């Protein structure tokens, strides 16, 4: 072997160990925070419309169904979201609007209650509340941001035939409802396949499983997922349908008018 070939092989070996070589990303190449950054920053288009069906299942197998039509759009510094409640009958006509800000400002939230005929401003500090009686909190549904947790890469492993990074995320806020979460992120897709939520005492509380995902308009989208509260044995299945990205919606969609008028 010529000296030049030997030097090249040596350089490649050192590069691989040091994580410099760009061809393969290994655990040593990427940190937990960087992985979660890719998950949070995964492209989701600048707007989205979808129909959300939540099936709430108690430990006896009894089911309750909640359906929502939602629209989201990013307007530079503000991300706006409006939800129209379709069923059950007693919440039909209710709508909810959220404006979240890229800077550290608190979200603005409003709710329209048809019985009162009034759009009411509500505090956005209820992110730990369960959403519509489901096993999801507002944070679980995506309102959390990257800097609210410290992320650590635990290991890499295969789950359901997918190569995953396993990330532990510990909240910065001390008295947060979870002491930590552990997420299985599919390599190169930057989408969560499974997530475990641990309560304040460190016991397993809930397990979220991504059961079906596919591409819509070039964007990976989770269509079917299930959250299982292992302590109360209650489950919430979320089914997404009628998903479309980069839709033609203007700021007029995110107004008092639309909250009252509905779909």
């Amino acid at each position: 072997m010529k000296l030049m070939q030997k030097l090249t092989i040596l350089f490649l070996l050192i590069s691989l160990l040091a994580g410099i070589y760009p061809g393969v990303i290994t655990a040593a190449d990427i940190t937990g925070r960087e992985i979660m950054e890719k998950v949070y920053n995964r492209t989701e288009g600048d707007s989205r419309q979808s129909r959300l069906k939540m099936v709430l299942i108690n430990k006896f197998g009894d089911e309750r169904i909640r359906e929502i039509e939602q629209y989201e759009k990013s307007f530079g510094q503000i991300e706006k979201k409006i939800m129209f409640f379709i069923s059950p009958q007693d919440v039909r006509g209710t709508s909810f609007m959220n404006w979240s800000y890229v800077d550290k400002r608190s979200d603005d939230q409003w709710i329209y209650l048809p019985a009162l005929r009034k759009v009411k401003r509500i505090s956005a500090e209820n992110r730990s509340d369960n959403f519509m009686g489901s096993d999801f909190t507002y944070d679980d549904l995506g309102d959390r941001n990257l800097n609210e947790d410290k992320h650590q890469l635990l290991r890499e492993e295969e789950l359901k035939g997918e190569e995953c990074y396993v990330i532990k995320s510990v909240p910065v806020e001390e008295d947060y409802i979870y002491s930590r979460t552990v997420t299985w992120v599919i390599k190169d897709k930057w989408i969560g396949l499974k997530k475990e939520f641990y309560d304040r005492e460190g016991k397993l509380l809930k397990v979220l499983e991504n059961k079906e995902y596919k591409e819509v308009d070039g964007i990976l989208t989770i269509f079917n997922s299930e959250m299982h509260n292992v302590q109360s044995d209650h489950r919430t299945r979320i089914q997404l349908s009628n998903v479309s990205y980069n839709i033609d919606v203007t700021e007029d969609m995110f107004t008092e008018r639309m909250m009252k008028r509905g779909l």
Partner: protein
Amino acid sequence: MFMKRKIGIITVTALLLLVLVAGQGLARPAYVAGKLTNYISYNLDEDSNSDLSLALDFEIEKDIGPGELYLNPLITYNFEVDEGDIELKEGYYDLYFNKFDLRLGKQRVTWGKADGLIVTNLINPPDLKHYPVVEYGDQFQNINAARANIYLGADNLEVIWIPEFKAAVFDQGIFSDSIKDKLNLPGNIKINPAEKLESKLENSEVAVRYSSLGSKYDYELAAAYLWDDRPTMHINPATMKVSQHYHRLPLVGGSISTARGPFVFRGETAYMIGKYFNIRKFTEYPDGTVQRDILKWLFGIDYTRGDYLYSLQFLQEAVLDYEENIIQDEFSNTATLLIKRDFLRSTLSTELNFYYALAQEELWAKPRISYDYSDRVNIKAGLDYALEGGRMRDNALFLQTEFLF
């Protein structure tokens, strides 16, 4: 009563037929939902049932022509008085344009940021005969109106025209006795009922509101040329007969709300011009009335902590340029406190309301509980109980069961 019911039946039937006929061949089917409600209330002071009724309620929505028709017919039967009724509780036609909406028909409008207390929310007159109320909205009557909403970006200019004045519904006997007492009138004095206002253009009502939702705060500015929905008693000094008349009550006002962390702050004010009051000074005011302006203001804080919502409000009504003998106090102060918590994945909702009228030292506790047994069956129960003070109402409790279909 029979005539009214007959007109009601004809109107509702005609509207239902219109929906069905107009719905033929149209792509989007009508949305139809129903609700059967059983309501029982019990008067704790008289130890008897005060109300036992069954109501069948439909909601129908249908795209017709360029707009959408909404109908809410209601059939009720009261077993206590053995009487049934049918009415169109709400029914209107919505027309949607690019920056403009129009709603024509019987409807309800809510203004302001106050919860359960009235400052600028004066478009729909109250119906105080139904007691205790299950929902806040049950204490208002729907009105026939034309309502236009003009959208200026995210802001909204609302213009309402109410062609025919509708008075408040309340217990006339209690009201008359209370005024007679305050004016020291003899118990047997004859009080004529208030004359209904003629249906003509100059007797119509107009109201305008500008509202805005923003990232820092929401606000409303309102102005209205309304009628006072309660009559004023006028005494004829010669005959000592009492007649009741309705008077105009123009007002300007506004409201604001903002959120800071777990707190939501709310404020609302109204300035009412030339309200008629009864006065015990017959030498200067022979018919026993005087006109004064009123300033009402409200401050409220909502605080969310964990699963609890606490809501505190203070309302003051001040009679300006006050005279000693006006039968209303110069300042009427009211405070409310609401503590609310949901359990069992929001299927069980509990709330405790306190209502305190400071001048009368009247303190009410109004606990409410609501349980969604299933998505089709809801059970609600509550109690209105006076903890302190003389009161206009009896202590009462209610139980309501709803079946949705």
